[in-house]
């Protein structure tokens, strides 16, 4: 089981990254802002609290993937620790997969702590305000939204691994991952925009544009599927088939990304 030493070493290195201190502080500030802002809302204090708590988890997680995650691969390639690791009797694929699992552990650990903090803030808000400010509140949906966010972050991380496997610069990986995130989140909105009739949006869209958007829709990860924050904030129902299919989509995309990353990485040379 040679994956475990790589996974554990990756986890330790990542979790001790000084950037995490700054990111945690930032998250605490955002949670504080949650409590402050939600009290300014006349009626739906509950919905706004949930909005902000889940958004804090999302955004902080994004920072972890971008600045701790990408750094993990970059350190190996920029700073030549790769020689140390690859000198062991492990294959290139084992290296990539082991490292990725280490990253998954980091995401789960950090998001776990953040989620606990978020729950604490929500419990605090519920205790402070009367029940009818939280008229529609569902712990199950909030936890489900949280889990989907974690899955999305793992997916984004897998994509960043893919980029790391063929670029030599960690900056390029960072830029590409950010672009993928933006495209991934906005893609379904753009697709809806170009497919809606001209009079609804006020301009016509050429068929070429429509086809390009559709192609992009299948290539880039549709990250908006993993965003059920609005549903969680209003305790709306989310069908189990939606959840199942979204999770399957996510897992397949992750497996494809990592497999491709491992394949590309196997061809890579380190002169």
């Amino acid at each position, binding site marked *: 089981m040679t994956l475990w030493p790589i996974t554990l070493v990756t986890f330790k290195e990542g979790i001790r990254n000084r950037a995490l201190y700054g990111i945690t502080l930032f998250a605490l500030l955002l949670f504080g802002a949650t409590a402050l*802002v939600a009290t300014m*809302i006349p009626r739906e204090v509950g919905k706004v609290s*949930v909005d902000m708590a889940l*958004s804090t988890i999302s*955004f902080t997680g994004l920072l972890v993937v971008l600045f701790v995650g990408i750094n993990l691969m970059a350190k190996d390639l920029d700073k030549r620790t790769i020689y140390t690791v690859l000198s062991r009797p492990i294959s290139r694929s084992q290296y990539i997969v082991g490292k990725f699992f280490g990253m998954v552990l980091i995401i789960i650990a950090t998001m776990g702590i953040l989620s606990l903090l978020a729950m604490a803030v929500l419990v605090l808000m519920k205790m402070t305000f009367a029940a009818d400010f939280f008229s529609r509140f569902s712990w199950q949906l909030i936890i489900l939204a949280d889990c989907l966010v974690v899955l999305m972050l793992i997916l984004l991380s897998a994509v960043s691994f893919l980029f790391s496997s063929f670029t030599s610069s960690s900056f390029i990986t960072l830029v590409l991952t950010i672009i993928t995130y933006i495209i991934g*989140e906005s893609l379904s909105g753009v697709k809806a925009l170009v497919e809606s009739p001209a009079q609804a*949006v006020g301009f016509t869209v050429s068929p070429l544009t429509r086809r390009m958007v559709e192609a992009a829709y299948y290539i880039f990860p549709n990250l908006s599927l993993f965003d059920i924050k609005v549903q969680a*904030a209003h305790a709306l129902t989310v069908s189990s088939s939606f959840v199942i299919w979204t999770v399957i989509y996510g897992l397949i995309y992750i497996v494809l990304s990592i497999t491709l990353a491992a394949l590309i990485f196997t061809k890579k040379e380190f002169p």
Partner: protein
Amino acid sequence: MRRLLIVAALILAVCLHAMALGKAADAMKLLPKDESQAFVLPSPLLKIAALEFHGIASDILFLKSTVFIGSAVGRKEKAGIKEWEWNWYAKILDASTDLDPYFLDPYLYANAFLPWEPGKVEEANRLLEKGSRYRDWDWRMPFFVGFNDFFFLHKDAEAAPFFMEASRRPGGDPMLASIAARIAFKENRTETAIFFLEETVRMTDDQSLKELYETRIQALQSIALLERGVGLYKKKFGRFPSTVDDLVRRNIINQIPVDPYGGTYSVALDGKVRSTTSSELEPHISPLMRSLH
């Protein structure tokens, strides 16, 4: 000695900094604002720009709108708020509810403000109908639409189905169904309006909105009192009074009620009671009056 000078210079710099900041902020408030600032991105673009943060984007837009209302309510003369400012307000609430159509607060505020001073009834109803579609557990949305149709637009036929819908939803007063019938028979409008507004006050927890509605109820109650008086006068003397003072002189009513909007009452030739304000700053007939005739 040098250290002392440096410390003194630093303290001076900090004071200057605070002063400059204060002066600049004050000056900025006095800058003329114009219509070019009334731009709100169209909702499809907002949704794309908001990425996965539709919820908080909606919250932020709503908070922006409350800042506007806060400063507007502070301005004594409501008519001093310009048309384009109300347009912006409507657009902001529309954008907020496009980002999160289940969010209650924008709908409540849209209903509390748009149909009244700015007279944007259709705009308000468009928003509220959106709210009614999404918040299908909420009886207040169709209730508001029905009220606006009835009270402001005099579209009684259109109002009735909304009241029916409201009566069917959880928390909706089943009485609303019979009110729908009443409207169809065009009974006393002012008293019906008072009933609806009292319903609204009952469900409102926001203190500032409550006061707003109660002032309106007071105005309507004064009108209702005078209308009853005019009716009694007609019965007794066979014709309408020429002024409201006639009602007092002939002992129909004890005293002329106070118009919370500061206007004076008069009786029209057809017996309808009107109020005009004496304030030079509000030369128009109040929308309240507009809606009753």
